[in-house]
């Protein structure tokens, strides 16, 4: 029974005009005002409207049926007519495209044939031309199971016809059913069909319209003979799934979309191959097994054209066995037709037959059987009880289920508003994204399947098999983990806190499982506001109210059933203790609604409001205002609406009660509506609470709001705009309408006074043009000056706002409707968003703490959460000089040293001179923090500088008269002092510098020149006293790499990386004994050094050679530093290596490689297992990899990828080091260098060189806590 409810109709019609689904939803919920029955009706109308398709759009009489349009005339030929050389006899069939007759061929031979005349709507010439094109191929077909096609032509009236071998058979499924063929016999018959189709395929003919009515079975000598008819016909007709073909010949055509492959359902189904027939055969087998097609016939009949196409291309049909289980009563008949019992049939089909059919029905044809003979072979294997080729896609199902779980739950039947609101969570992800997720997940699923397959295929050795199975399971878990993290990442980008948190929780390891979570998990988790406090109060909040100071929360729960009363409760937010519990009697309005919609009213129209001092709570419903003392729980007073004067509402739609009481309780404002629809008039009455007397009447259509002290009322008026008047005198003190009105009027405005009463905010709909639906904005005015201070835009339709106690900020959130759990803090003066809080639960109500430093939120999940809301004032770093260069970042990534050419006036002291340029240039050194704030500066600087690991001291070389001096700048004291000796004959080349791991020693590799002779000397100094520890003998090559062994006893040094094959001998790698200054080890030889890395434990040293000859392959070597022996050597296809990096404990070796293929740079990161020498993963990036590094635990690899040229935007990508699977992508504003994790794994950062007008800085991401310490 479908109701007719004018009110629901009106809301529906308005809603149907709103384009955005979110806005529409918001509108509907608002307009239904909490009436669940109404909401259900409107939702049902909207749903039906969405399903309409072309329903009724085409008249039952054909509008185009004007005389003379031959195309639409019915077929005039009938028995007796002569068509070409054929004489029509009886009509034997009516197919999708036309009528089929038995015809007598008169010449050259006398025989009976089948003649098919095509129905109206086809271009005859085209049809015949297409048939002619395939005639040759058709003639080549010679198969006992294929009906031959002899001829085609046009009738006298201009219709195309086809002449075929006459087959007097019945459709295969009917034959099977009437003969009660068992499944086995059906399969055997099906094999014959496959053979016939295969024959055609080998002749290059694709059928394109395989369906039971084209596969006939005729008894021949007592045995059934299958004949596939209509080969070549579909192609000639050029049949495609178009709107026209569906709607002009719907009932007859219906068979076709049901058997149509996804690629045929594409708009331009040009690319159709034999696998399309494989699909149709899959549908046929499905039907032979279950009696029904994969997609529901009825559903296709009703669905719109676009929808049918979508279903075919996107929807996964149920497995045959699943479909059987949903047949209900029909199953008995279906089983009988298969000469078996329902249980037996289901058991028979479940498993192998399911997988065989599903493989044929794969959306992606690459995953179907390649040919119909491959399809047949698998069926034959099944019949022979051999293992089949098709595989259960169990992982796929798991993935899909997983994804479904995180998508929108569709709740249709529930009458609960709240449930509905919660149901909306998740829709925001959007379809596109969902598809992308699905793609990624499918990829992961595919890989996981491969892993599983690999494991399944592996050997006969039981132990090996077990190990492989374990490894495969681990691989599977990792694949699932990566897919989940991808989902979480997308949810995070969509600002959907609850969704993200839920996904992150789902990958928490179960007991006994390894914890796969890493930086990416902690990072995503860290993106959401960390609650300072969570108090669980109720199962859920419906429409809670918070006291201004956040100390109390009140809510009216849902009634358990129709007869039980709803309870108004107040709790302390600090500990969740209940301080008030009142049973509410049903208001008359609630009853009216309940009667009207014959539904239990379990939610009502309530408004809750705390007094500003938080001592009293006002509950308002349609008839009564009741004020409760929170301390005593008693009712302070109540006011009942006069029974004789019920307040009529336009459609019975209510967004809240029509009464409001002033915060001081002295006055009541009541809206009275009279008339209906267009003749509606309304006014507000001001009532004295104590006496109940009406003090005055206000001409307004909306209910006003009182100022906190009750002295003024603000209300919205369609004509006058926002009006503020003195409560008692009615004197208008403010009236503005400085907005252009959108099509969608919103005169309610919902004004809210600031706590000081000097400002007022309101929600206005401003439209660009009168016809355009307006965008909702939040506008803030100064009451005294009537000037609009600021505007916040755009905001969601159901947005709510709360003033901060100082009136300087506004918290803005969207209750219930948004998938995300966002709360914005907006600056009142500027309207700018100062802070955006992503929470992990959806905000229902919010208020500031009295000091304004915290936000207390009541979430729909029944919790109270306290969030810190002191916005970090964003620091905009100014360039400190020209040519900024980062001189190093501390280990924790929080501090960086940089040098710059100073542009401002000297701070005093002598000018440090650098270089021999004509003008003295001053250089400065700065210590900055991660946000770019300058922590310390000195007007010194020079050639080369390095920051120590702790971020405390900077070593630099100053040019002084007579030579170079190594200096140490202590950033804490600001003092600089010399370290080691004065270097005479120093070359004006920056020396390499390095601090020891404990920052107690500093090594310098100073280039010296004496005439033409260039040497380099390594010196190690005590970084505290400046004393020289050792000095090496002069080394012939300049050095670029210096690193201390963690034990501080050895310094490793290497020459500059080079790509110049003309100087291969210049590369050295050596170890210097700090105690003696002797070169203890020489590693190598290295030709064309391409990078050096020392493992974190100091045991391994790695270097890569960019060697062109003789092998043409690159080579990397890992040595043991203790004895200088080669541990392993690695060869790789020749590429240029730009970085070598040893993982933790030297277990893994990472090589960053590049090559250029036809002008396109391609980067690949290769990871080798140092012990076995095997390549473990290779990470292929789109774009150029600029840097790559291991996480401290070795479980992750981070790469910095440039999207385009240097200086452009890029990304940091996080990978699973085990599997090479991508986990997280973080956008980087610009490309930098030196990508690193902090030693505790909490920060990931890289440094950005300065550029003109842009300061050097660190870009970093933080993943706050380790897994396990997050949930408490």
């Amino acid at each position, binding site marked *: *029974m*479908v109701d*007719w409810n004018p009110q629901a*109709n009106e809301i*529906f*019609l308005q809603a*149907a005009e709103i384009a955005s689904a979110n806005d529409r939803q918001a509108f509907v919920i608002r307009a239904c005002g909490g009436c669940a029955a109404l909401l259900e009706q409107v939702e*049902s*109308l909207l749903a*039906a*409207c969405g*399903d*309409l398709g072309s*329903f*009724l*759009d*085409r*008249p*039952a*009489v*054909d*509008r185009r*049926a*004007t*005389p*003379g349009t031959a195309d*639409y*005339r*019915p077929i*005039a030929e009938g028995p007796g007519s002569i068509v070409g050389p054929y004489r029509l006899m009886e009509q034997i069939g009516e197919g999708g495209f036309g009528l089929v007759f038995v015809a007598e061929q008169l010449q050259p031979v006398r025989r009976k044939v089948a003649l098919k005349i095509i129905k109206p709507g086809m271009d005859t010439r085209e049809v015949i031309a297409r048939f002619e094109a395939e005639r040759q191929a058709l003639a080549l077909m010679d198969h006992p199971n294929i009906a031959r096609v002899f001829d085609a032509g046009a009738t006298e009236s201009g219709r195309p016809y086809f002449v075929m071998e006459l087959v007097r058979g019945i459709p295969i499924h009917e034959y099977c059913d009437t003969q009660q063929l068992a499944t086995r016999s059906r399969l055997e018959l099906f094999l014959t069909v496959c053979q016939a189709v295969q024959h055609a395929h080998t002749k290059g003919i694709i059928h394109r319209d395989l369906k039971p009515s084209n596969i006939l079975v005729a008894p021949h000598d007592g045995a059934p003979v299958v004949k596939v008819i209509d080969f070549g016909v579909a192609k000639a007709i050029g049949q495609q799934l178009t709107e026209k073909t569906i709607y*002009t*010949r*719907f*009932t*007859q055509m219906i068979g076709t979309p049901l058997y149509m492959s996804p690629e045929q359902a594409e708009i331009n189904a040009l690319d159709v191959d034999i696998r399309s027939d494989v699909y149709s055969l899959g549908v046929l087998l499905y039907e032979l097994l279950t009696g029904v097609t994969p997609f529901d016939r*009825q559903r296709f009949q*009703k669905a719109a054209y676009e929808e049918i196409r979508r279903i075919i291309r996107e929807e996964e049909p149920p497995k045959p066995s699943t479909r059987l289980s949903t047949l209900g009563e029909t199953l008995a008949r279906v089983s009988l037709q298969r000469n078996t019992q329902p249980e037996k049939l289901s058991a028979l089909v479940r498993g192998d037959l399911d997988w065989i059919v599903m493989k044929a029905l794969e959306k992606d044809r690459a995953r179907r059987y390649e040919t119909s003979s491959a399809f047949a072979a698998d069926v034959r294997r099944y019949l022979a009880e051999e293992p089949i080729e098709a595989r259960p896609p169990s992982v796929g199902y798991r993935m899909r289920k997983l994804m479904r779980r995180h998508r929108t739950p569709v709740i249709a039947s529930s009458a609960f508003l709240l449930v509905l609101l919660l149901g909306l969570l998740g829709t925001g992800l959007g379809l596109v994204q969902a598809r992308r997720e699905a793609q990624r997940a499918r990829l992961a699923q595919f890989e996981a399947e491969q892993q599983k397959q690999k494991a399944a295929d592996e050997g006969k050795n039981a132990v090996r098999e077990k190990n492989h199975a374990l490894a495969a399971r681990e691989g599977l878990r990792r694949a699932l983990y990566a897919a989940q993290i991808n989902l979480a990442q997308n949810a995070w980008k969509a600002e959907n806190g609850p969704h993200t948190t839920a996904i992150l929780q789902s990958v928490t390891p179960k007991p006994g499982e390894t914890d796969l979570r890493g930086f990416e998990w902690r990072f995503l988790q860290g993106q959401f506001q960390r609650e300072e406090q969570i108090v669980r109060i109720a199962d859920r909040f419906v429409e809670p109210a918070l006291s201004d100071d956040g100390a109390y929360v009140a809510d009216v729960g849902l009634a358990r059933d129709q007869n039980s009363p709803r309870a108004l409760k107040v709790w302390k937010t600090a500990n969740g203790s209940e301080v008030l519990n009142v049973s509410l009697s049903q208001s008359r309005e609630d009853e009216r609604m309940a009667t009207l919609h014959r539904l239990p009213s379990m939610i009502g129209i309530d408004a809750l409001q705390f007094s500003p001092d938080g001592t009293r709570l006002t509950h308002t419903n349609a008839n009564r205002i009741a004020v409760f003392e929170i301390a005593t729980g008693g009712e302070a007073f109540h006011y009942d609406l006069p029974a004789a004067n019920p307040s009529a509402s336009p459609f019975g739609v209510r967004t809240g009660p029509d009464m409001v009481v002033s915060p001081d309780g002295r006055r009541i404002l009541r809206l009275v509506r009279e008339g209906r629809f267009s003749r509606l008039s309304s006014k507000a009455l001001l009532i004295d609470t104590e006496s109940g007397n009406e003090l005055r009447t206000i001409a307004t259509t909306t209910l006003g709001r009182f100022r906190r002290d009750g002295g003024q009322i603000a209300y919205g008026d369609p004509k006058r705009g926002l009006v503020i008047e003195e409560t008692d005198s009615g004197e208008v003190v403010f009236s503005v309408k400085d907005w252009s009105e959108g099509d969608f009027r919103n005169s309610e405005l919902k004004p809210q006074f600031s706590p000081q009463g000097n400002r007022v905010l309101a929600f206005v709909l401003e439209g660009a043009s009168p016809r355009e639906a307006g965008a909702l904005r939040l506008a803030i005015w100064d009451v005294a000056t009537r000037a609009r201070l600021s505007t916040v835009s755009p905001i969601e339709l159901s947005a709510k706002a709360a003033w901060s106690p100082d009136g300087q900020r506004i918290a803005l959130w969207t209750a219930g409707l948004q998938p995300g759990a966002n709360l914005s803090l907006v600056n009142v003066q500027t309207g700018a968003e100062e802070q955006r809080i992503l929470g992990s639960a959806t905000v229902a109500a919010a208020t500031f703490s009295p000091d304004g430093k915290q936000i207390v939120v009541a979430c729909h999940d029944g919790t109270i959460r306290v969030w810190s809301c002191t916005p970090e004032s964003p620091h905009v770093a100014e360039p400190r000089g020209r040519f900024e260069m980062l001189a190093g970042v501390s280990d924790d990534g929080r501090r960086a040293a940089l040098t710059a050419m100073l542009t401002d006036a000297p701070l005093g002291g002598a000018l440090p001179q650098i270089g021999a340029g004509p003008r003295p240039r001053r250089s400065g050194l700065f210590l900055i923090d991660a946000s770019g704030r300058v922590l310390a500066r000195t007007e010194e600087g020079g050639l080369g500088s390095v920051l120590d690991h702790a971020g405390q001291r900077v070593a630099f070389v100053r040019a002084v008269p007579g030579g170079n001096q190594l200096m140490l700048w202590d950033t804490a004291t600001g003092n600089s002092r010399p370290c080691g000796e004065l270097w005479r004959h120093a070359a004006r080349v920056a020396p390499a510098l390095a601090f020891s791991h404990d920052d107690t020693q500093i090594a310098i590799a100073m280039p010296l020149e004496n005439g033409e002779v260039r040497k380099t000397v390594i010196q190690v100094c005590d970084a505290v006293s400046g004393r020289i520890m050792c000095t090496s003998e002069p080394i012939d090559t300049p050095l670029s790499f210096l690193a201390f062994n963690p034990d501080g006893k050895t310094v490793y040094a290497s020459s500059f990386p080079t790509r110049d094959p003309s100087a291969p001998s210049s590369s050295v790698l050596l170890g210097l004994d700090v105690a003696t200054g002797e070169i203890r080890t020489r590693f190598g030889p290295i030709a064309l050094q391409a990078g050096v890395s020392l493992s974190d434990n100091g045991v391994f040293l790695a270097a890569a050679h960019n060697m062109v000859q003789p092998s043409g392959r690159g080579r990397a070597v890992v040595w043991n530093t203790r004895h200088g022996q080669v541990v392993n050597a690695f060869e790789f296809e020749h590429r240029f290596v730009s970085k070598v990096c040893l993982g933790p404990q030297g277990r893994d070796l990472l090589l960053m490689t590049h090559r250029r293929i036809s002008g396109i740079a391609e980067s690949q990161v290769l990871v080798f297992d140092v012990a076995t020498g095997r390549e473990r993963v290779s990470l292929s990036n789109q774009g150029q990899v600029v840097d790559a590094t291991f996480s401290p635990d070795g479980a992750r690899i981070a790469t910095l990828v440039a999207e385009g040229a240097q200086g452009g935007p890029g990304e940091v990508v996080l990978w699973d080091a085990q599997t090479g699977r991508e986990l997280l992508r973080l956008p980087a504003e610009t490309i930098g260098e030196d990508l690193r994790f902090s030693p505790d794994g909490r920060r990931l950062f890289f440094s950005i060189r300065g550029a003109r007008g842009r300061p050097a800085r660190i870009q970093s991401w933080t993943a706050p806590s380790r897994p396990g310490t997050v949930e408490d």
Partner: protein
Amino acid sequence: MPDVTHILSQMEAGDLSAAEQLLPLVYDELRMLAAARLSQEKPGQTIQATALVHEAYLRLVGAASGRSPWNGRGHFFAAAAEAMRRILVERARARSRLKHGGGRQRCEFEEHLAVAEDRVEELLAVHDALDELARHDPQAADLVKLRFFAGFEHQEAAEALGLSRRAADRLWRLARTWLYQVLKDEK
């Protein structure tokens, strides 16, 4: 024989019972017109329903003296649409009888109205639900009759009923949605 113009003016004045007299007149006129047309056309041709209705209107109302032809237009077209509906339903029923083994009938003019072969069931289903819609919102039902049974274009139908384009859009959407719900509900 009552004068169509007179009936229409009665209806304008609020006497809705006059509609009962209008329908048979329009119905007869339509049949007569169709028969006349058919005698001039070649066999096997079809007649455009919309054209018939318009022609009937001109004959019955447009020529009436002393009155603006546009008065009572909505009532007339509503009646014409209702007549077309009945004609089509008769035909559809006849067709479905035929399908279930009934004999061939004499070639009547309804045969020549191009009811799409596959629309018979849909037509009958809509017909059944339409009476219920008419009880709730007669104008919505009239709109459906005009568009679905008489083959009027949307704009034409809106004008015939004296509706603004927007009002007709809304009414059409509501009518379609509601009927769709009803038909779905029955299944």
